[in-house]
């Protein structure tokens, strides 16, 4: 593993128990069944870079994202973040809050990722208070305004409720909330798949700009090859829970080794002579 890797995942696996209830099993004589959602996945992300996991629904990409941030427990494998062990099979997940503070997540849906009953200011304030980052009230307010500014919103927006914003603006609020705990690493789980194309470009550009300004490391989850192409420094292709191919974007797209990768690209609609990025 290269020394500059920020996140290293080794042999990550996750199974879901989809067995029938015991009585039905008893009567039918069938044993339990496991669904393998993630199967022995290993990769690492260099500091300040974007690694994209691309795959279709059911490929296990979201499960990986959730395991890395600690929302779900892996069955096996290790996760190391910034030199610290975040999960290993022996000691389980670390409860270290300084580690948790370093990783954040931006979710897919701009509608359900913000609590509709909370004002934007309170939403942004929550991580600041939860991690005890700033104790003084006016400094907290200042920080909220700074965050809003960073994602292209204005100070009075702090007093509004999420439903007063468009989808793109809500996704900006989501990003601001992720930034609130001064993270080094952000998992972006399909952050633009629910957005309109013209707004998607804004959000993607914002993520890129923040990466440059704050030296952030991204794990970018998507089903869209074209989006991944413009975002990632390295791409991993997932199929049925396995990492089938991994490469630099240019090389991957020009000469995919796996037929699955080629099929994914061939079925991505594009327009002839298309406008290059």
């Amino acid at each position, binding site marked *: 593993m290269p020394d500059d890797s920020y996140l290293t995942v080794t042999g990550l696996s996750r199974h879901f128990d989809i067995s029938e209830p015991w009585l039905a099993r008893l009567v039918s004589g069938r044993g339990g069944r496991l669904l393998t959602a993630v199967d022995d996945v290993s990769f690492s992300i260099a500091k300040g870079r*974007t690694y994209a996991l691309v795959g*279709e*629904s059911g490929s296990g990409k979201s499960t990986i994202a959730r395991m890395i941030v600690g929302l779900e427990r892996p069955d096996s494998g290790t996760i190391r973040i910034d030199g610290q062990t975040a999960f290993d099979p022996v000691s389980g997940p670390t409860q270290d809050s300084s580690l948790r503070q370093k990783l954040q997540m931006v979710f897919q849906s701009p509608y359900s990722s913000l609590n509709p009953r909370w004002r934007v200011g309170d939403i942004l304030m929550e991580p600041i208070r939860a991690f005890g980052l700033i104790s003084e009230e006016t400094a907290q307010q200042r920080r909220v305004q700074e965050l809003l500014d960073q994602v292209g919103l204005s100070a009075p927006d702090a007093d509004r409720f999420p439903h007063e914003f*468009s*989808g*793109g*603006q809500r996704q900006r609020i989501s990003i601001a909330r992720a930034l609130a705990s001064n993270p080094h690493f952000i998992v972006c789980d399909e952050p633009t798949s629910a957005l*309109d*194309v*013209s*707004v*998607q*470009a*804004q959000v*993607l*550009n914002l993520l*890129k700009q923040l990466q440059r300004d704050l030296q952030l490391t991204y794990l970018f989850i998507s*089903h*869209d*090859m*074209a*989006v991944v*192409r*413009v*975002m*990632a*420094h390295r791409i991993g292709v997932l199929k049925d829970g396995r990492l089938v191919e991994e490469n630099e*974007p240019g090389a991957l*797209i020009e000469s995919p080794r796996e037929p699955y990768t080629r*099929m*994914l*690209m*061939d*079925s*991505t*609609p*594009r*327009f*002839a*002579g*298309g*406008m*290059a*990025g």
Partner: protein
Amino acid sequence: MTTPLLHVDGLSVEFPQRRQRLQALDGISFTLEAGEVLGFVGESGAGKSLTGAAIMGLLEPPGRITAGSITLEGRRIDGNAAGVRGREIGMIFQDPLTSLNPLRTVGDQLVETIQLHLNLPAEAAGARAAQLLEEVGIDPARRGAFPHEFSGGMRQRIVIALALAPEPKLIIADEPTTALDVSIQAQVLALLRRLCKERGAAVILITHDMGVIAETTDRVAVLYAGRLVEDGLTAAVIAAPRHPYTRGLMASTPNLDAVSVDTVLPQIPGSMPGLSALPDGCRFHPRCDVALPDCSRVAPVFAHGVACHKFAAEQKGEAADAG
């Protein structure tokens, strides 16, 4: 000149709300020839699905048509679309999960549609259903199965079979592949296009995806905030978009052929206005980088396949130069 298959003229749709009336469609006009595949493209809220629903006479109340006419082969169908629904115009919706009645077998639902529209005896209708299933790539032996026993892609094939069953002249497909995985999307679109071409049925394909438009349609109509902003042959529009919105929409679509991760994507600032806060003049002007003073005051006239003051002014300039 022969009568076109479908002619929509000045179609306006309104949704009365608590405090105001929202004008969801404003003066949409277009023509569709038999066998043509026309794409409607636009972002959410642009009114593309509403246009489809209005043609079918399936606007959700309290939405209603306030102006304009819809003619199918020279007959007015606005106001009495029930007569042509299914029989002459078929429709396919976005979500194949919910489009089929979960409590009845797919064969049942097919036979029901066939018998209703084609007046066939039960046996012939059954045979016809089996044949249709075969055509969309589903084993006819599975006609006794319930919708939940099929995968998403299979279900959308069944929906296509249902829409084609009465041999309609026009199919309106409203985001037919948005809910499906990319690999299945391409197959379903290809199937839809092939079956319609074979039967000489025209298609209105509603989508937000420029790539889908480029690969599937003959002609494209671009909608923005309830108005038609550009209309033309797909190849021509993609090669040289005339409306700044079309241009921006295409430019901001990420592309597999991008050069490097470090480039900034071209973007349109802001977002499409909600129906309750539509700007005066050209509805795109607050986001437009080439807006003229007139744009904020006067709605541009739709001419030469585009509704744009800037384009009209350039045309005039060229004409003057030439003259």
